[in-house]
């Protein structure tokens, strides 16, 4: 069948984030908000109501001074593949407003289809999904900087990281103009990857051996968040610190990342 013929071409975009290098500066968050028309309000200190497709978490080893250690962990949508594309959120959406695309491995969110039941948010263990509790409003004149490649979301719908799908669409368009059938690794990079001043984020096709992420994800220090739940996420993290790797998932007392891995 057609789908099988094309199976070799299917992409699986993903990220490898090096937590040893990430400084938690927040550039990725702002780059994401600037690229994706994420609104802001006067008071954004209630983080449970604040929309940040990319959110940097601060992890602590929980030890008292001076043994304390902290690590920053950027968390975009994990674009879970689950089992055969049945990621936790995709299968619960009653209106097919979110979907898993086998061609790209990207979990899409269509704002105009979504009617705001928020079941997907309940399903996502990463809190990667955000609801528009408010109408998006920009101070007078500031709406000038909005990116025409990304739809502005109306109040009452769920939104989340799209892996900057508009950049993939633009890359494909450029490829069409050049008569190419495929795009290069550098043609499609997300806004956060591009902005990261530490170069902590690597983005590419996890299926493609020529892409940097292909090798990086196989590093012994690589781990994913909550792998044990079977979410099968596409964001890999690297850390040389054992406590950080352990913080990536839940373990019983006698278990550890290595034993389970």
């Amino acid at each position, binding site marked *: 069948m057609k789908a099988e013929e094309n199976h070799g071409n299917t992409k699986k975009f993903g990220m490898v984030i090096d937590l040893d290098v990430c400084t938690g500066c927040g550039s990725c968050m702002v780059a994401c908000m600037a690229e994706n028309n994420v609104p802001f309000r006067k008071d954004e200190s209630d983080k449970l*109501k604040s929309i940040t497709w990319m959110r940097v978490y601060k992890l602590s080893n929980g030890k008292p001074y001076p043994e304390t250690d902290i690590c920053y962990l950027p968390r975009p949508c994990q674009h879970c593949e689950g089992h055969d594309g049945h990621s936790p959120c995709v299968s619960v959406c*009653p209106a097919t407003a979110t979907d898993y695309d086998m061609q790209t491995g990207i979990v899409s969110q269509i704002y105009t289809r979504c*009617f705001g*039941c928020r079941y*997907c*948010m309940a399903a996502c263990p990463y809190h990667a999904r955000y*609801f528009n509790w408010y109408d998006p409003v920009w101070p007078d004149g500031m709406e000038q900087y909005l990116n025409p490649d990304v739809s502005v979301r109306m109040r009452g719908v769920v939104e989340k990281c799209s892996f900057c799908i508009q950049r993939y669409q633009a890359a494909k368009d450029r490829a069409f103009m050049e008569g190419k059938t495929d795009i290069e690794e550098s043609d499609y990079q997300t806004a956060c990857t591009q902005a990261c001043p530490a170069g902590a984020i690597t983005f590419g096709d996890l299926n493609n051996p020529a892409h940097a992420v292909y090798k990086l994800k196989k590093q012994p220090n690589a781990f994913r968040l909550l792998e044990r*739940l*079977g979410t099968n996420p596409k964001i890999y993290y690297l850390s040389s610190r054992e406590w950080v790797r352990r913080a990536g998932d839940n*373990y019983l007392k006698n278990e550890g990342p290595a034993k389970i891995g």
Partner: protein
Amino acid sequence: MDSAFIPNGVRRCAPGKFLVVLAVAGAVLLWGVYAMLLCWFKGLNQTNMNNNYGFALWIWADLAVIALGGGAFFTGFLRYIIGKDELKNIVNYAVLIGFICYSSALLILAIDIGQPLRGWFIFWHANVHSMLTEVAFCLSCYFGVLTIEYIPLILENRGIDRVPFLHHLGHNMHDIMAVFAATGAFLSFFHQGSLGGVAGVLFGRPFSFREGFFIWPWTFFLFTWSAAAYGPCFTLLITRITEAVTGKKLVKDNVVELLAKISGWMMATYIIAKIVDTLYWANVTAPSKGFTLMDFYSHNAFYGVWILILEIVIGGIIPAAILITDKGRKSPAARTTAFVLAVIGVCVNRWVMVLQVMAAPVMTFDKWALYYPSWQEVATTILPVAYGVILIAISYRYLPIFPQEPELNPID
């Protein structure tokens, strides 16, 4: 004034008193409607829900009223399918309560979604994999069934009954009610289960996730079972309250006892299943994801083991024990206590399966998130109560809800 519409052979309070009750309930209703309009026009920022609490008080209310409204389908099932004929004396009320519960659930859902004007997408663009789709379809269908079951009752109003067409309509509908009851029971088994499935399929949430049979997680069956078990208790509790308010005996004890007995046994078997499910989940499912039972009942200011005890022991084992024993069932006080505990039990279960799921952290670096509803959420949740009071008051006044009422309360 309205005596022409009051059923034959019963006595009703003075219209003035009746209007006062309506006015009080109406005021509460208006308060709820105001809150509802705020939510619709200003958006869900009127609530205290947040990105950790996508589901909150409303979804709990939905699950709870549907479980409580389960009395309708199960009583109907017993009466029309199993053939427990005595239950005809309470099935009307069960249908009315069910109707109130289901219409409330639909209303709350309409407030709860961020884009109510696009709500119909759930039908038009349905995703068959989603438990919520199943819920929406079955809920709407069963609401239709309940409406059809409720209509003949309305048609029995003395005023309406005088219109021949409506009289015949009512008569014919009565004849085919068994078909609707059967349909309703079938639909209910499904959507009660789907509601259980809503939480049970969340494999990203180890607190609610359950393994299961084919595509249905165990919570699917537990929810159906619990609705069948606890729903009649709610019907009986409301009947008891109605009796207390009106100061009349409305349903004969043997009817109440029969339904209570069935409910008690259902509850007893359910609670055993629930305990088995909890044990399996605590010892197999959760540990396989790296969690221990106590991870879900500690390190936070609210959710402790007490809630598990409240749900299973106080709200499950105790009422079941009362209702399956002859003595417990026969004592009005014990019986009523059991009803109250049972209602608490099932409400706590639904609460836990919605709100504690949202509260419990999954990522190791996440924190417990506690939430309290805004007044708008509370008002819109109380709205159905006021609406229920009004509908019951009107129905009781004008419709022959309780067939045994004239017999039990003869007018001299």
